[in-house]
């Protein structure tokens, strides 16, 4: 395949998923400029490794590369106040039965939800982004994040519980 043909095929196969790529990068870096840089770097990496793309979901393939690029970036640029995520610690925090505070979340506006989601640990945030914004199946999320189906499900459960908790706190503060 000539280089031009290769590039054209890449542009047709992979670039339609640029919005998804940027969205994931935007939620993981939590910043527009960094997300743009990471997305561009990921796309060029994807182009370099395009021969390894075996067919299947081009979106999942691209998002896997975007995610890896993001984590490399986060590792280098992580703000000192944020701590590494520990699945054990976080799991004990949220697995304490059902949430006693049942408050309607209908009052939560976009900005509040946005903020609460940004505050979640990376692995919870990415699970929700892939599921709720990209509409990916558990299988696809498992592939992109290199974990088992069971882990995908439990991360989503914890992510939603934590999100609800922080929204409840946020909303009760507002009233």
């Amino acid at each position, binding site marked *: 395949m000539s280089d031009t043909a290769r*590039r054209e095929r890449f542009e047709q196969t992979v670039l339609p998923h640029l919005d998804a790529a940027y969205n994931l990068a935007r939620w993981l870096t939590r910043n527009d400029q960094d997300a743009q840089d990471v997305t*561009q770097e990921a796309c060029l990496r994807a182009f370099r490794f395009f021969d390894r793309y075996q067919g299947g979901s081009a979106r999942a393939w691209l998002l896997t590369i975007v995610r890896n690029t993001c984590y490399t970036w986060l590792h280098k640029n992580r703000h000192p106040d944020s701590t590494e995520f520990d699945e054990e610690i976080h799991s004990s925090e949220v697995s304490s039965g*059902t949430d006693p505070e049942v408050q309607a*979340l209908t009052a939560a506006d976009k900005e509040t939800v*946005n903020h609460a989601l940004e505050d979640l640990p990376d692995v919870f945030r990415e699970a929700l982004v892939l599921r709720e914004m990209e509409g990916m199946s558990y299988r696809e999320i498992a592939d992109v994040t290199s974990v088992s189906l069971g882990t995908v499900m439990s991360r989503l459960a914890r992510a939603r519980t934590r999100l609800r908790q922080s929204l409840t706190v946020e909303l009760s503060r507002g009233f």
Partner: protein
Amino acid sequence: MSCDLTQRFVPGYVDGELDLVRTIEMERHLADCPACAEKLESEREVRALLRRSSLAYAAPAVLRDRIRSSLRASSVAIEVQGVGIKWPSLRAWQWAGAVAVLTLFSLSGWQLTARLRAPASDRQIAAEVLSSHVRSLEADHLMDVVSTDQHTVKPWFDAKLDFSPPVEDLASDGFPLVGGRLDYLDGREVAALIYQRRNHFINVFVWPTPTGPDSTQSIESRQGYNIVRWSSDGFQCWAVSDIAASDLAGFVRLLENYNPSEPNQK
């Protein structure tokens, strides 16, 4: 199904990811367990909230453009590197075809070749020059080689391009050379030289021009930027910056006068 197990599977149930058997078991349990039903409602509510908040970000158009042009530049880089290897990969009949085509071209005269390879119009190039300049400032990718020393910048280009661009430092005239970069214009890889004028940057794009006599400066103003083009000694050159037109013209005159083979412009 126990409460424990049911609650563990709630997300899968809400997301429609459970198999049929488990779904039926779940529904049976949920029908007579208010606690689990509440958990289910809570999960659904968060899910609905996230969906209706439409939180997804779309990729900015400028990012899309930037990625497209860097893909183009990188596939050219691959082609340039691969030139030596590619020739022998043609099969015999392809060679024969190539020779036939070449003969045809030379028979029908170079005019045809020239027309087929006609470079983009100056208008088009000016637009590309401007967007390259803007992109170089935005993308935090102004320079690939950072050096104020022309003897560092020039060999760097020589190693990366199939031509050797003239590189002059004009620091003594208030236009220090600050670095170089590879860029992509008019369908080919070009050298971009970056000069500084106080807090402003000037991008000078240089690439070989096939024919034609040296031409004098022509100045154009677009979107608050000034663009000067000229050609000299077999090179086509474009300078672009947000400095004043007269400053930029002065800068270009300095550059031209540095060229030893072009002592008299105009």
